[in-house]
Structures are given as structure tokens and as C-alpha cells.
């Protein structure tokens, strides 16, 4: 089975969170507010935002948004604890761009996302699929 694309990982993990950790999913929606995050992962281009308490993955974002540019290897290094987020930024393996407000929203949304993901019993299996390992 080929590894998941990043958009698949993100969409499925958010759907999992809505089902398995709904309060954390609500907190994630609150952290996003009206802002969006644009993600460039390798060749993939997606934007994520919340509307009417549900996440939306779209091809592009309107309005205020942070831009995150990163590659798959860096995401895996972050998930495996081999690389800290700050180090990834400082050594230019992860680019984060946006207004101060957008970056603050992104930071709050990232922490809320991780807090929620960790409450989902099915998340480790999903992460292994993104890794390309047998689930």
C-alpha cells in the first residue's frame, strides 16, 4: 500500500478527531477562528480552515492565512521526535510565513491539533500509514 498523501493524512486525522475527540476538535476550531493555514508539502498545495464548526480542505485560501512550506521527510522527522519545530524553522526545513496574527493563530491551531490527535486512539495507525509502514 503506498503511503498516504499529506492531504489525506490531514483530512482523515481531522475526521478522526471529530469522531474520537470531539471536544478537542471544537477547541481546534476555536483556535482557527476565521483564519486559515496554507500548506505546501512537496508538490501538494492545500489550505485548511474551519467553517460552521467543521474543517474544510481547499485548494487555496482567502483572507488572512499563514503559509507553511515543508517536505514529507521533515514532517516525519518532526513526528518521530528527531527534529524540533524551532530547529526545523531555524535550519530552513520548514518555512512559516504570515502576519503576526496569522502566525499566532497557526501556533495555537498546531498545538490544538496535536492535543486532539493525541487523544485519538486511531491516530498512531494513521501516522504509520503516512510513514509508509504497514498499519
Amino acid at each position, binding site marked *: 500500500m503506498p503511503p498516504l498523501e499529506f492531504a489525506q493524512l490531514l483530512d482523515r486525522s481531522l475526521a478522526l478527531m471529530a469522531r*474520537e475527540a*470531539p471536544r478537542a476538535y471544537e477547541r481546534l476550531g476555536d483556535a482557527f477562528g476565521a483564519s486559515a493555514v496554507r500548506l505546501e508539502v512537496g508538490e501538494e498545495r492545500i489550505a485548511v480552515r474551519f467553517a460552521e464548526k467543521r474543517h474544510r480542505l481547499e485548494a487555496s485560501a482567502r483572507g488572512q492565512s499563514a503559509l507553511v512550506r515543508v517536505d514529507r521527510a521533515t514532517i516525519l522527522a518532526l513526528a518521530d521526535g528527531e527534529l524540533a519545530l524551532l530547529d526545523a524553522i531555524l535550519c530552513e526545513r520548514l518555512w512559516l510565513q504570515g502576519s503576526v496574527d496569522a502566525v499566532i493563530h497557526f501556533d495555537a491551531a498546531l498545538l490544538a491539533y*496535536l492535543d486532539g490527535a*493525541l*487523544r485519538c*486512539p486511531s491516530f498512531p495507525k494513521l501516522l504509520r500509514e503516512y510513514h509508509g509502514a504497514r498499519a
Partner: protein
Amino acid sequence: MLAETALLTALIERGDHWRRSPASVGGRVGHKEWSHFCVFGDGIELLLNWSLMDDTGSFRPRVEVPRVTWLVRSDAGGWDGELEEFDSEHVAVRGGRIDLRMGASELRFRDGVYEIDAVLGGGRVALHLLLRPLARPAITSSIALGSGSAVRWFVVPRLEADGVISVAGRRHELRRAPAYHDRDWGRFGWGGDFSWEWAIALPDDRESPWSLVFQRFSDRHRLRVLSQGILLWRRGTHARTLHSRDLSVRSSGRLRAAACLRVPRVMALAAPGSAADLPRRIEIEASNGGDRLAIELELLDLAQIVVPNDGDVPGVTVISEARSRANVEGRVRGERVSFAGPAVVELNRAPA
């Protein structure tokens, strides 16, 4: 000697067994329980923890989630570790028994000796250990951890370990290595109004008769001490307990551990703190009547276990396991206490 061994075995069989969650038979959810071992080899240290915990951090509470948490530190390879979770078909644990199997790890208690066989981290670590208890166990009374929450523990403060730990293909043979074991159980939720500091100290000198355990429970913000104490053993028997009012605890310095290992590894993202509120040194003075102890714990480095808070409490709880050195001096019941040796300091607190 044979009678003492038989007594030790009977005490362990009576106290060191799985309690199991009441929720497994329709009772209340919230039980947590673990069986914990620390082994101090020459150039290698191991922390191994089997747990059954009711997990209320997700939408539908899960009862008795079986996990193995292991941390190993070798002089050659530094820290490694994982938190491994298992489906129930790969787990064998019976209430009232010590023995267990989780995945490729197994614990047995036979003829007064703990026997551990484990393959961990997909084969990165393999071990076969025999751990012989050298001191009688103690069991604590229930320690309240805020409203409706409490924990108890059963401790075998000193064992000696023989066997092999292989890390990334490198064999470490252990001969009479100092070791420690406890079992904790209770009903509480991660993220509740509590924190703890806990330490064990064992002597380098195998002939030294002393071993020591320190524990302090506080509220989550560490402004109010709920309970604290020191238990001291001399040879196989409990020699002295010093209680809350007898102790003065002081922390100093800062343990710089920004890049320490955190498990599960993805948790490093969720708890990116630099461990800035962890001390480099903990000094404990204790006295009562003519007895006194001065304990210095120097924290060398650490790994962290990060768990999501239970219930609807956002955030995580961070449990730091610090490889440490202990120096203990004092006088108890007219006898001088003096030893230095390996220690583990465990700090459970909200992230900085």
C-alpha cells in the same frame, strides 16, 4: 536466610499483584495501575513500565489500555525509548497475579525471583533479566490527589539484576546490578490538581546496607504539599520513615534538556518546552528525634513521558525521568548512614 527468602516471596506474592480496573466489571472508570522496574547496569540504565490505564482523554473512555513504556540509556547510544500500546488479544494479565504478557514482553515471578523477557522497539532493544529482591516490600496508605482521587503504591526498594540487555545489537551483561521495583494503582486523572516528585537512591557499594525512597505530592502548581516522606531500608528491612513535618526540600539550578527524548515521539511537538523548570539539584534535609538524613540528588539528564490529560482538561502532563546521582549522609537509630550511588528522580508536572 531461607526463611527470610520465603518471607520476602510471600510478601511480594501478597502485595504485588494486578488490582484491575473496577470498570472492567461494570464499575467506575478512572483506574490507573502500573508495574515499574529500574535497573542500573554498568554503562546502561533501564526503566520498564507495564500499565493498564483507563483512558478518559478521548470521547469514549477506554478501559484498561495496555501499554509498555520503556526508556533505556546507554553510555554509547544515549537515550532510546517508546510508549507501545497493544490490542487486547496480545495481552495476558490476570487480577490477583503478578505475571503478565504484553506483545513481546513478559514478566513472571517464580521462586521469589522476577523474570523479564522483552523485545522492544521492534527489536532495537532485547532483554532477559532475573531480578532477585533483597529487601522487604512496603505498601503505602492511600495518598489523596485532590477530590475523589488517590494513589497507593507497593515498593520493593532493592533488587539485584542478572542478565543481558541488548541495545542496537550491543550486549550489556549485568551481574548483581542494583535494581528497583514498584507497583502503583489508584483512581485519578492526568491533568488533575496534583504533581509529584519521587526518587530512589541505591548504593554503588553492593555491601552497603542502605536503600532509600523519597516521595512528595503537591498540588498541580506546586504551591501546597499534600504528602511527603522518606523511607529508608537497612539490609532487608525497613529502618525508618520520616514524614511530612520532618522534611525540608530545596531545589536549585536548572537542568537544560531542550532536546531530550520524549515518548511518544510525536509528543515532542505537543510539549516543546525546554524543561526550564526542572532543577539540576534537589537537597532534602530530614530529622526527627536523634535521627537525621541529608540527601543530595544531582540530576544528570532525562527523558520524558508525555500523556494527554484525562477528561476534558486540555493539554498534556509531562513525566520526567532523570538519571541522577545520590549522596546520602546521616545518622539513624544511632548508626551512621553514608552512601553514594545511582538514582532516578521522577517529576510529574504540567509542562512549563
